[in-house]
């Protein structure tokens, strides 16, 4: 739960509340991806991530 609090504080600090619906959608979508695959392997161009 502290994670959600910190995420909220972050959005407040950065004044980026408009990111919230996108985060929710992406988390849901990303969650599906996590569930649908066995392992998470970092891509090779990892500077970008």
């Amino acid at each position, binding site marked *: 739960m502290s994670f959600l609090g910190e995420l909220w504080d972050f959005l407040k600090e950065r004044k980026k509340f408009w*990111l919230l619906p996108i985060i929710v959608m992406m988390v849901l979508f990303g969650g599906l991806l996590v569930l649908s695959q066995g392992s998470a392997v970092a891509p090779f161009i*990892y*500077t970008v991530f």
Partner: protein
Amino acid sequence: MRILGLSAFYHDSAAALVEDGVVTAAAQEERFTRRKHDSGFPIHAIEYCLEAAGTDLGGIDHVVFYDKPFLKFERLLETYLAFAPRGFASFRVAMPVWLREKLFQKDLLGKKLVALAPDFDVKGQLLFAEHHLSHAASAFFPSPFEEAVVLTMDGVGEWTTTSVAIGRGKDLEVVKEIHFPHSLGLLYSAITYYTGFRVNSGEYKVMGLAPYGEPKYARTLLDNVIDLKPDGSFRLDQAYFEYCTGLRMTSRKFHDLFGRPPRRPDRDPLEPFHMDMAASVQAVTEEAMLRLARALAAEYGIPNLCLAGGVALNCVGNGRVLRDGAFENLWIQPAAGDAGGALGAALAAAHLHLETPRRVTPGKDAMRGSYLGPAFGQTDIEARLTAAGARFRVLDETATIDATARALADGKAVGWMQGRMEFGPRALGGRSILGDPRSPTMQKTLNLKVKYRESFRPFAPSVRREDVAEWFELDADSPYMLLVAGVRAERRREMTPEEEALFGIDKLNVPRSDIPAVTHVDYSARIQTVRADTHPRYHALLTRFKELTGCPVLVNTSFNVRGEPIVCTPEDAFRCFMGTELDMLVAGDCLLLKEDQDPALGRDYKSAFALD
């Protein structure tokens, strides 16, 4: 006040310890785990730092992480949004990694630290510094300057790819930034990928390849790919790249512009085209660095410049910035890459957050020669070597230096393990392989029999600081091998047109100077100057070698084979010694000759490490 800085989870994990504003210990995790560019939680590096300070995590006031994961996640989301739906391929690979792990870095760090010290207060003691502030702090606070302009350039941190900060005393303020996706580091990485080398580790190979080519495509890059302004600021046309949306660096449009697809490292040979591409991106990078330096010198009127970030490891560019003279003085953080972020994060917390006063010694930086890693006492070395089955003689210090210098003068390749291990990517005489630079065959021997690496890559010289101007076109300190300068004209030998036309080891093997083993094809050398007060034993070896041969220069390359992290312990050194064709190993006062060793202890070392 003790502060522990950490970098982890991307590449080059490291830990660094700052006590009352003074850097006392730092090491990269890869040296302990023996996995190159290890990105895991740096538990071994942390344990080493705590041991060096004679404490445990309970004795640490703050732990500082070198970047801000939420900010990075914000950049990732906004980038995907800006390019949607094109970035789906990248999104589906990146998101699971983030949702499982990276987004929860604070929790993860907290758990690891609490496991080390149950009463560690995550909320109060764990701090986060921005990536480029960490780089800037690592460049300014250990520098010998009271006041300086600080320029950081790398691939990307959270949003920032290039930043300018002004440092005064214990204060450091970021005044300008260039943001992702416009990045000099990523441009260089894109060409690294395009020429068939590995992103994030092959960039220095591109730099080494550049002198073989002509910058034929620099104009094409400047006219199409990068819009470089007179003040050095720049924008990249994203139509030529795919790093925002895909899993490749360059796009089809980029390949069409230059008329061919990326080189496949395992199938396609290196051709003059790739050398010309390397020369071109090097020329563009140097031009950007020069313009930035000139504009900043004119704008702020401060004579001192500090550099950090991965691009500051471009020692050819650094050498040009110094020779250009826009700034009178230049200081570069030796661990300019992400490992150095650990050090910068700790220093930023010390001076900016906790307001610890900063002590500056004019003319002398606070990096202790970058000898910040583990050291092993003579008794310990003897015990460890004996346990490993080594046969050795123990000499006194003078005899050790004399025997080593004589072996070097006889053309032997020597493994040299002395004192504390270096922090940063370069071996500086603590964990080095040494050779005679006058020998026309030394380069070939080291490349093919000892290091097992690509034939086109040159070696670097160590030279006594007091002798540097007699051998090279440089009369300044370059203790960290981060400046490139030419070999002096009177020591050069002109190449014939037939020799000019050669490539790779053939061209490199043509003697071009009195010290051919360290002279690149364009007569340049990546110089390390050695002072008696920073590394007395290495300086004494150079002095003895000069007495024997008249030459105060040695070939100095890192003590490892291709793909292996630099050795850390006497056991690592012995394994590398036995697995390669090194003739002699000098660890502390222990002297090992290859012919004395049990051949059964040798093993196939060449294929023991994945190639980088």
